[in-house]
């Protein structure tokens, strides 16, 4: 037992060492310019350029008033010239400079973009010129945008939802057959993304081969994980709650191994990072995203078909329904659970591979969507196959749509809030059965 766990840990270590060999040891921080020697007559220049960026092009904004207040409270005012440029010299002094744009002096039809900072505070540490940019746009932008954003947000939400469904389906299958709420599932997602990055960027393989290898490794990781870790724990009679806490320990361990080898950096694959966008009506999409979407949908459909049509699939559902009864009809429960772990981890790894394209690869890529996956399968109904997929789509669209009303930093919070709300009004979710909630 102990030996097996040790062997598993060694294996994970080995697999990751392989991945981490080439990761640079440390990122050298940029050294801040040392403060110049202070002299009474020294001046510091505050400059910038006011540009009205709109879809039709750029125009310079002239005649707007800028006020600079230095640390001692002294105000200096200037106006932007016909090129939109402004520049003002203020006495050098260490401390905060406040730069304010007088919005009433902006020409008709030009306004600060929503959320743009004004006044802007800067810390002065040297006499180097300070460049301040105010984000401007057409004043009418806000009115037109709200409705226009809906199709695009729906598309983005659908895209995220389909990819999320891969992870959520694996999580739900594992929960259905073993009863384990796997908190380490997010790390299985990260695993796929980090392996793809390693094969692609470090070993220089083509992105397709890298992705396929990563998916294969993910499946193997799931197989090994169940054979040498979860199955022995089940055989020991470890309780479900105890296993859940074990999975939290595993999450901590894996996430920090990822951080150990990637150094907390945000990295990207070598290819298909910024594909050209194609605009169709109100929606902008890319060919890359359509291909990825196709891959995800094919995978989701084949897994759900396999669950309903094949012998193994039926056995899986039987175990999810009643493990003892399934065992008494001659189903090899342990074998089926191992297959579920393998497929579930494969799905999670694929989710990570695909997420790595649209978001960057980071050690906590999966940890950040773990709770979103929980939200998805709770909305759909814990343990339900279709529930996981529908729940993911609902949650994905909800997250993207929510950015129209709340700050985008809070979009995950919107999903989690819905999770709590669902537990309040319909704890079994959309597709779940009431007896499961206890």
């Amino acid at each position, binding site marked *: 037992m102990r030996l097996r*766990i040790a062997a598993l*840990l060694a294996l994970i270590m080995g697999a990751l060492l392989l991945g981490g060999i080439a990761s640079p*040891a*440390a990122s050298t921080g940029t050294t801040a310019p040392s403060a110049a020697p202070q002299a009474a007559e020294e001046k510091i220049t505050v400059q910038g350029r006011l540009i009205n960026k709109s879809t039709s092009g750029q125009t310079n904004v002239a005649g707007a008033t800028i006020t600079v207040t230095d640390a001692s409270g002294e105000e200096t005012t200037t106006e932007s010239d016909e090129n939109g440029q402004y520049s003002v010299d203020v006495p050098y002094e260490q401390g905060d400079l406040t730069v304010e744009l007088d919005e009433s002096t902006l020409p008709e039809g030009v306004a600060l973009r929503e959320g743009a900072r004004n006044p802007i505070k800067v810390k002065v540490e040297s006499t180097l010129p300070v460049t301040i940019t105010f984000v401007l746009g057409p004043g009418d932008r806000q009115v037109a945008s709200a409705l226009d954003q809906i199709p695009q947000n729906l598309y983005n939400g659908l895209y995220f939802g389909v990819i999320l469904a891969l992870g959520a389906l694996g999580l739900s299958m594992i929960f259905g057959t073993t*009863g384990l*709420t796997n908190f380490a599932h997010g790390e299985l997602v990260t695993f796929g993304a980090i392996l793809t990055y390693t094969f692609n960027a470090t070993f220089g393989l083509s992105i397709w081969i890298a992705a396929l290898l990563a998916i294969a490794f993910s499946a193997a990781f799931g197989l090994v994980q169940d054979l040498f870790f979860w199955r022995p*724990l089940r055989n*020991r009679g*470890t*309780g*479900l*709650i*105890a296993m*859940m*806490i*074990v999975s*939290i*320990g*595993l*999450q*901590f*361990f*894996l*996430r*920090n*191994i990822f*951080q*150990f080898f990637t*150094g907390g950096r945000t990295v990207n694959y070598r290819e298909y990072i910024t594909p050209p966008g194609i605009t169709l009506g109100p929606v902008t999409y890319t060919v890359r995203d359509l291909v990825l979407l196709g891959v995800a949908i094919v995978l989701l459909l084949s897994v759900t078909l396999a669950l309903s049509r094949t012998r193994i699939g039926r056995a899986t559902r039987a175990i999810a329904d009643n493990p003892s009864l399934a065992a008494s009809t001659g189903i090899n429960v342990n074998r089926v659970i191992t297959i579920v772990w393998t497929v579930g981890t494969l799905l999670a790894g694929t989710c990570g591979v695909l997420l790595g394209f649209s978001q960057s690869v980071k050690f906590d890529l999966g940890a950040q969507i773990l*709770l979103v996956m*929980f*939200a998805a399968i*709770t909305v759909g109904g814990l343990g339900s196959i279709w529930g996981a997929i529908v729940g993911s789509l609902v949650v994905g669209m909800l997250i993207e749509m929510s950015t129209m009303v709340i*700050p985008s*930093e*809070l979009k*995950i*919070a919107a999903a*989690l*809030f819905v*999770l*709590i709300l669902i*537990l*309040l009004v319909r*704890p079994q979710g959309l597709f779940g059965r009431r007896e499961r*909630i*206890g």
Partner: protein
Amino acid sequence: MTIIIDALRAAVSIEAAYFCLTAIGLNVQFGFAGLLNFGQAGFVAVGAYGFAVAVASFNLPFFVAILVGLTCTAILALFLGIPTLRLRADYLAIATIAAAEVIRLFFGASFKEYFNGRDGVTGFSDAFQGANPYSGEVLGFRPDDFWVMTIGWILVVLSSIFLWSLMRSPWGRVLKSIREDEEAVRSLGKNVYSYKMQALILGGMVGCLGGFILALGQNSVQPDNFSSDLTFIVYTMLILGGAARIFGPIFGAVVFWAFLSLISGILGRLTEGGDPVIPSWLMTDDQVGSVRFMIVGIALMLLMIFRPQGVFGDRKEIALDAR
């Protein structure tokens, strides 16, 4: 030698007192009542922010602000408990961890005039430090820190004595029997739901005391102090010491924090300098932090698998099976 002294200092530091109080609170919920609260970080965050904002933005007196913090935590427990306490253990776990994350994101991104985004709230500890009786360094600690430590450890002792007597009272016995068999308690005519709610509130408020200590100790509260990692580190500490034991969380927090400090000290020493003992292709000093958390993960897994009752606990008393 300095590494060992540093570890011993860590054992009595502000952080250790903070973890102690948070773990004691969790012990009420998880150890005594069997509630799988994965959102302790949220309770601590709400308490600490409530206190900090009350002083920093509304200039309330110190003790009123403390009351505000405790009230905020109690209200959170009430709101969270109403929908989730009737559900099975793993639903409670997911709901509480989600709530804690919502709270952290909320503090980081909204009402910036009060919460200051990710920079957090500062400038609320003047009244507390004004009452500081220490003027010089004590045992190598800064007087400000030592004052926070003093209050922190007094709170640890007081809350432990309070819980010790509470758990021997009829109320405590009912709580423990709810953990053992909810249906049996219900058949005796006790309102299980109400007892669970009281335990959630009480545990949250003790954890919130920890939040005050953290806030005063580091002179600020930031959203990143309260990620779910905090909850899980505290779980590791509680399980190490032994859940459902008065001394368990204290022992767990002190020993585990000192142990982590010892590990970082040793690893830091082994990786420092131009020709470190551990070659730099294997590990650099930037990676010591990751190794520390890996150890948390391994410790949690090993404890849970081989000794879920920890050092002082009784295996029969740990409620670890889903009902």
